[in-house]
């Protein structure tokens, strides 16, 4: 980081005064709950944010116990992550999945898994935010609500849509971009009709910003994706106000305290203006975007894990001041694993202490009108918009995905971050400054290093499950899905049918690929249950 500059390279003056950050109040800020929502999407509520911690490990039953433990600690929403195979549309018995089943999230691949996962969880009361593949999460949540006599219309929570960047950062679907985009649009359209309180379109800028992006780059790439998906939905003939209220954003929060607050304020304003002025949204709910945050895993270190508790707390204070809707803290053991029981406790208690003891929620947007913060918000906003324009001026963003532009971009930011940390340009206490010898670095180390064993039993269980199913209705449903993919029909109904017939997520994803003329199994190990259709 340059001296006296933000992580995105915005130069800071040592002192700000009345000539900075001036402007027309109602045009640029508005009161909280008023356009352009710079100061927050709601008028003062004093309620604070939804508190949750990333959860999911092992099989669905073990994860269900984890959820219940978190609820006894006072968690007010669920945040669920699948293991790497689940996140990548792969069943646990796939040869590549074997050593990582249930180790970095929960293993989910069939409807019965969701029944176990959410057993005893009040679907009508708990907001369920899932990082799992959206189409399958929505299908199972919808079916589960119906089975339990709960109207899908009251379900709250979110699923992530990431057609642009998932192939290059974290979780690859190994699908053509157009197919992934179609899945996203089908889910959003389905949710806006059938689950109107649920966010079927969460723009997750967190996961790709962990590729070493700064705040401006993170927000700009997020808006490029939002804008493309919005245009695709409008091209279907949908009314902007039918789906825009269900768009939400999940961002990262680095250690650059002021810039992160400015980023969130700027993103609310950009979203509001874009929806109103560019896409013609009339419903104020279409213009006011809820922003939730996952604090930065990349900012954490495996050295001196206790320092990570401080990092999580500082980021949480920033987010409380920025007025976010929900948050989860990346916990102290993040460098090694998904959160342990102890880390969950510390993460949630950190949020609760800040929420309940500091009076942080007594005032909405406390930075509003600050010469410095308004000036920084303006600058961050201008740079985000410049970058969005720059990327869109290169051509159709979808073409940029296919041509590898973003992949190249992420490789650049990864290399840059790696160098910044090695050179000490980004300081990390305990890692590149104030280090200590390994034998002294013992605080919380035993907990952090404790491993989660892969679930070899679950591999066997799912493998055996395949032959136990009634094959005729299963194959019929998969064939029907294959046919639907080749029409313009929304795929969700066919996916629901496959799910009820016992199809696994890996099978359904494979059929989608196959119907699109690409290999059923992109890794070349498996054959399609409905045979060759070419």
């Amino acid at each position, binding site marked *: 980081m340059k001296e006296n500059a933000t992580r995105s390279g915005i130069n800071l003056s040592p002192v700000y005064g009345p000539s900075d950050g001036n402007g027309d109040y109602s045009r640029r800020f508005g009161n909280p709950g008023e356009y352009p929502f710079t100061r927050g999407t709601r008028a003062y509520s004093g309620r604070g944010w939804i508190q949750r911690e990333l959860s999911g490990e092992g099989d669905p039953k073990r994860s269900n116990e984890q959820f219940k433990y978190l609820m006894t600690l006072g968690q007010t929403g669920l945040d669920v992550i699948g293991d790497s*195979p689940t996140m990548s549309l792969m069943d646990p018995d796939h040869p590549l*999945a074997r*050593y990582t089943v249930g180790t970095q999230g929960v293993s989910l691949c069939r409807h019965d898994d969701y029944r176990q996962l959410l057993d005893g969880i009040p679907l009508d009361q708990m907001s369920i935010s899932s990082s799992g593949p959206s189409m399958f999460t929505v299908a199972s949540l919808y079916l589960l609500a119906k089975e339990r006599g709960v109207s899908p219309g009251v379900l709250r929570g979110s699923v992530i849509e990431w057609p642009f960047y998932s192939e290059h950062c974290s979780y690859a679907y190994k699908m053509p971009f157009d197919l992934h985009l179609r899945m996203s649009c089908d889910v959003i359209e389905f949710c806006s009709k059938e689950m109107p309180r649920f966010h079927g379109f969460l723009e997750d800028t967190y996961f790709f910003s962990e590729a070493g992006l700064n705040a401006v780059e993170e927000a700009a790439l997020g808006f490029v994706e939002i804008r493309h998906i919005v245009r695709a939905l409008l091209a279907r003939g949908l009314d902007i106000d039918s789906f825009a209220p269900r768009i939400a954003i999940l961002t990262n929060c680095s250690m650059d305290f002021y810039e992160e607050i400015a980023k969130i304020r700027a993103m609310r304003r950009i979203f509001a203006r874009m929806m109103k002025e560019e896409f013609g949204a009339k419903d104020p709910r279409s213009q006011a975007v809820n922003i939730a945050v996952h604090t930065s895993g*990349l900012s954490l270190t495996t050295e001196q894990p206790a320092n990570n508790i401080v990092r999580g707390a500082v980021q949480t204070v920033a987010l409380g001041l920025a007025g976010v809707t929900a948050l989860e803290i990346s916990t102290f053991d993040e460098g090694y694993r998904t959160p342990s029981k102890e880390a969950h406790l510390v993460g949630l208690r950190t949020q609760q202490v800040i929420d309940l003891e500091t009076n942080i929620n007594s005032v909405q947007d406390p930075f509003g009108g600050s010469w410095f913060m308004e000036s920084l918000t303006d600058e961050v906003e201008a740079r985000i918009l410049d970058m969005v324009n720059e990327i869109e001026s290169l051509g159709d963003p979808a073409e940029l995905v296919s041509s590898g532009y973003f992949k190249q971009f992420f490789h650049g930011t*990864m*290399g840059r971050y*790696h*160098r910044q940390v090695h050179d000490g340009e980004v300081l990390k206490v305990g890692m590149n400054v104030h280090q200590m010898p390994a034998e002294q670095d013992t605080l919380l180390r035993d907990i952090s290093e404790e491993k*989660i064993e892969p679930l070899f039993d679950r591999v066997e269980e799912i493998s055996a499950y395949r032959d136990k199913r009634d094959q005729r209705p299963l194959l019929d449903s998969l064939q029907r899905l294959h046919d639907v993919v080749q029409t313009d029909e929304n795929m969700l109904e066919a996916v629901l049918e496959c799910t009820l017939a016992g199809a696994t997520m890996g099978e359904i994803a494979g059929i989608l690929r196959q119907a699109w003329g690409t290999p059923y199994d992109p890794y070349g190990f498996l054959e399609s249950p409905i045979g060759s259709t070419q």
Partner: protein
Amino acid sequence: MSPIRVLVGVLGMDQHELGAVGIARMLRDQGMEVIYTGCFNTPETIVQAAMQEDADVIGISSHSWEYLYYTPELLELLKQNDLDVPVVLGGSVITEEDAGKMLDKGVAAVFGSGSAMTDMIDTVRNLAAGAATS
């Protein structure tokens, strides 16, 4: 003298690429030839690429415990193919205890989080020199 050829890749379903990309860039900056194989490798694909590309050193980056299973398989497969290429492991997820276990199994070097760049570069150079003379 021809430049040192280093194969860098990630195994299994581990999709955290930042370390691998960073190391690849760092080695390239040192004038080495890096064959970057990205994610979703198996011991088989790594060995195949190492043979085709005539690699002097294999570098595996890890942010998942999968390496604990794949690394011994990789070492065994190299032996079966009479391929005497040293394997270097890197990644912040590797604990000191596990590093010891991997070294016992025949890994040439392990680098955890915060390892000095110069150490990593020197180690790769020395290993490549050793492999060339053996």
